[in-house]
């Protein structure tokens, strides 16, 4: 069957989508919002996204890849935002395997090898 991608924005939408696919491997990439020209306020996210996309074919069959925009810069900087509080995210970009402690943060997302390891790890 391969894998499929879902694009969401904001915390409630993320949780709803993750719950809908409970039982399948779920990988999520969290990035800062993009402007009208499609560019994110987060420069590291701009670097990481193509690296991650190139490795998506390594995800196991039936996987769901959730591409989640977290919000604008002000929202992200707030230490009490829901992503920080509930998902324990510490930075963007973050790439994680939902429901496990496996994640890559910031510059770790630039490394194709690490991304591949996250997608293929048992």
């Amino acid at each position, binding site marked *: 069957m391969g894998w499929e991608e879902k694009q969401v924005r904001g915390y409630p939408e993320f949780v709803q989508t993750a719950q809908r696919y409970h039982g399948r491997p779920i990988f999520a990439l969290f990035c800062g919002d993009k402007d009208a020209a499609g560019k994110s306020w987060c420069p590291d996210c701009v670097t990481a996204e193509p690296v991650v996309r190139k490795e998506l074919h390594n995800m196991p069959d039936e996987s769901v890849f959730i591409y989640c925009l977290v919000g604008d810069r002000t929202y992200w900087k707030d230490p009490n935002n829901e992503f920080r509080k509930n998902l324990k995210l510490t930075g963007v970009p973050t790439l994680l395997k939902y429901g*496990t*402690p*496996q*994640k890559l943060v910031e510059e*770790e997302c630039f*490394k194709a090898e*690490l991304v591949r*390891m996250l997608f293929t*790890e*048992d």
Partner: protein
Amino acid sequence: QEAAKYEKKVMVLDFVVPTPLGNSWGLGGTCVNVGCIPKKLMHQAALLGQALQDSRKYGWQFTEQVKHNWMTMTESVQNHIGSLNWGYRVSLREKNVTYENAYGEFVGPHTVKARNKRGVEKLYTAERFLIATGERPRYLGIPGDKEYCISSDDLFSLPYCPGKTLVVGASYVALECAGLLAGLGLHVTVMVRSILLRGFDQDIANKIGEYMEEHGISFIREFVPIKVEQIEKGTPGRLKVTARSTTGNQIIEGEYNTVLLAIGRDACTRKIGLDKVGVKINEKTGKIPVNDEEQTNVPYIYAVGDILQDKLELTPVAIQAGRLLVQRLYGGATNKCDYVNVPTTVFTPLEYGACGYSEETAVEKFGEENIEVYHSHFWPLEWTVPSRDNNKCYAKIICNIRDNERVIGFHVLGPSAGEITQGFAAAMKCGLTKEQLDSTIGIHPVCAEV
């Protein structure tokens, strides 16, 4: 990781042979997965239970009875361990260390065969090899042991509360596990063949035993189990244990939900092909003798950690030995690992920190007339308000009269013993004498000032 710093091409082969009950775990070795880390976290869970009880006397008011949920604790602990396993994977990858989750064994000179869990085999050659395969829990060799008993390999990820537990053994693993299980509110019995904490200061070992007994842990002394049978399946089930006295023919029986074996650990050196490359091991214990540079009798094969003969079985010792070895091999350093005055702590309900000689060993080595022992009971200030034991905490130092009253043994029994001991270990490495200790002004009010 250290070798990779020196631009060497490095590979790690790590594989966990599942326990008899099918348990396995991730990268990191015993300490991270089924040793120090989960042990300390669960010990902390037990201490927090005690703190909740004490808190009422300090004015905290809550009416509900506080209960413990085993599954919640285990899930948190396993989550943390999972993040450590992952952290190591990322770390190795970032430093360009190749990692294979495969069982390694020597098949010929400079050659190792790696078999992964799907049975796929690959061969690898290398200039040098480092063996750090550690140990696994020993089983009793009696009917029912592998089918019905668990070990520390299974305890920290047990998917159900163990219930009424019999701990077999008197090692620090046995006593720490017994202590934390009792601290979580479970009914615990410890079956001991002879003495407690062999190799540790016996005066202190007995105090630890007494404390545990006074706090609800039963001890059955001078008995060994001869049979374990299942009365009822379940999570947990019910087991019947039959035991024989070591001093006569008396037989006793007992019923428990769980039997935890902690009677010792055996080195994992028998099935890794050491004979194919000529590495000598101690046939009786399985341990590998090495010179003071961690080299085996085969010059290109080294070993560190619990598998070494006559060396301390502690995580930090293995790590230090490994790092220094690599620095000597590839960094031109000459420092050897110092195995003397290594501090340790036993995390029994009353914690025990030690560094240097036990009283018995000091007397044996230096002679009773050359040793002076200074000791004292103390009552931690924090224990006064909730009226906890006032004469159980204890500290003792052993001095060599012939050598300026140098402190050669340090022992402390009380809360946060590990934290206290670390500092004194550094002082002992500098050659601390009794006079220097006396002239150091104490911090007040803390236990360590004694």
